[in-house]
């Protein structure tokens, strides 16, 4: 893989899966290493930071919960951009990117939900509150699962990519509406006593570990995304090889 033709000169050169794979082979150990370092620092700071005077130890859940929630939204944005790539530029790697991101997004959203629920039990006295944020994240989770189900239901990857791209974009346009309506619904029903995460200010003692953890989670996402894309490309190559094998067997007979 050392031919000069494989060098990436323009961004559009990434369109070539072979070049992309070559790039991934170089980049992913660095990404993974950076992720590990960030997590080491972030986790250390998270556990070393002082307890919140109100929330006590449970404030540490926030260091996982907030980054996961942030990623659940960023991942959908990545998918929406990929969907544009699929529909507008018909970029085969965009198909792969959207498909690879969906399970990751679902995973991070699930983490956000579970940690939110764990945090809610001591804070609110219950595992689940129909709080505006929790509810909209839950709806987002359902949308991720629907996308995964759609992808699995179609056997032709190109068509599955196009269908899910449209669904992703429809969902993307709708997310603000859903969020807005859930908030409306919530103010209508909500008892006023629920403690909200967003206090007036966050003390810097909490902010730093939070920022580093958010960065670590983002890097984790990119590492996993790039590797998942690589796996998907390899999977498609295997499918092509199998089809070739089937056809050449037919010709030999």
């Amino acid at each position, binding site marked *: 893989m050392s031919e000069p033709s494989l060098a990436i000169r323009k961004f559009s050169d990434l369109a070539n899966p072979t070049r992309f794979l070559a790039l991934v082979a170089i980049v992913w150990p660095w990404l993974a290493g950076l992720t590990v370092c960030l997590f080491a620092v972030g986790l250390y700071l998270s556990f070393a930071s002082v307890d919140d005077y109100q929330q006590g130890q449970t404030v540490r859940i926030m260091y996982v919960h907030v980054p996961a929630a942030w990623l659940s939204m960023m991942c959908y944005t990545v998918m929406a951009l990929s969907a544009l790539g699929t529909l507008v530029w018909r970029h085969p790697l965009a198909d792969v990117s959207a498909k690879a991101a969906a399970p990751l997004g679902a995973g991070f959203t699930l983490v956000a939900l579970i940690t939110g629920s764990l945090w809610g039990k001591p804070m609110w006295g219950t595992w689940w509150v129909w709080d505006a944020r929790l509810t909209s994240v839950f709806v987002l989770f359902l949308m991720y699962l*629907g996308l995964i189900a759609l992808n699995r*239901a179609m056997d032709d990857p190109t068509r599955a990519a196009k*269908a899910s791209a449209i669904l992703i974009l429809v969902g993307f*346009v*709708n997310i603000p509406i859903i969020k807005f*309506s859930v908030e409306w*619904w919530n103010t209508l029903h909500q008892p006023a006593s629920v403690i909200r995460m967003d206090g007036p200010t966050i003390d810097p003692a909490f902010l730093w570990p939070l920022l580093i953890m958010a960065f670590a989670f983002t890097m984790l996402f990119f590492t996993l995304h790039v590797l998942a894309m690589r796996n998907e490309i390899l999977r498609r190559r295997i499918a092509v090889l199998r089809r070739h094998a089937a056809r050449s067997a037919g010709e030999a007979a």
Partner: protein
Amino acid sequence: MIALLARDLKLSMRAGGGALIGVLFFMTVVAVIPFGVGPDLNLLARIGPAILWIGALLASLLGLDRLFQAEREDGSLDLLLMQETPLVLTVFVKCLAHWLATGLPLVIASPLLGLFMNMDEVAIGATTLTLLVGTPAITFIGAAGAGIAVALPRGGLLVSILVLPLAIPVLIFGVSAVYAAIQDPAPFLPPFLILVALNLFFAVIGPVAAAAALRLSSD
């Protein structure tokens, strides 16, 4: 376009059409609720609007998957795609026909079911009015799901799964408007107008998405 509307309406009336099934499903869903929550008339009066709305939401999704699948199976979809008429318009008209055949009967049946739920006149009127405005929105956004799942042999359940999260805002504002009408301090108009806005918004985005999906799905 009027020809298409007339044909789809005729089809839904003929044997095998889905017009009556939706209403029957709606009535059945609403009828089993008291068995679940108990025959307490005060409770039923309180949750009645919500029950009617959820029943109507589920009933509107029923049969939506056949909207384009039936056309695809007999080859009509190919001809609809080829015409000079913008596909978005064709899809819009098909949605309209589908709503007239399945959504409108739900709206008409809702006052009767409201009586079963021990709702008062204002609540019944508000529910009927919000359903009249809200159910088209469900059909339109559902059409997007139907277009996306058109090539799937068993797309029915999937369409519901894909569409329900997107329909949540409609449900929220529909039910909010009804409760605002019943309970004095809350004003009725804001949620109702938002519901109207949602309807108009979905009337654009649904057919556009469905048309794009249908173009891509043809092979």
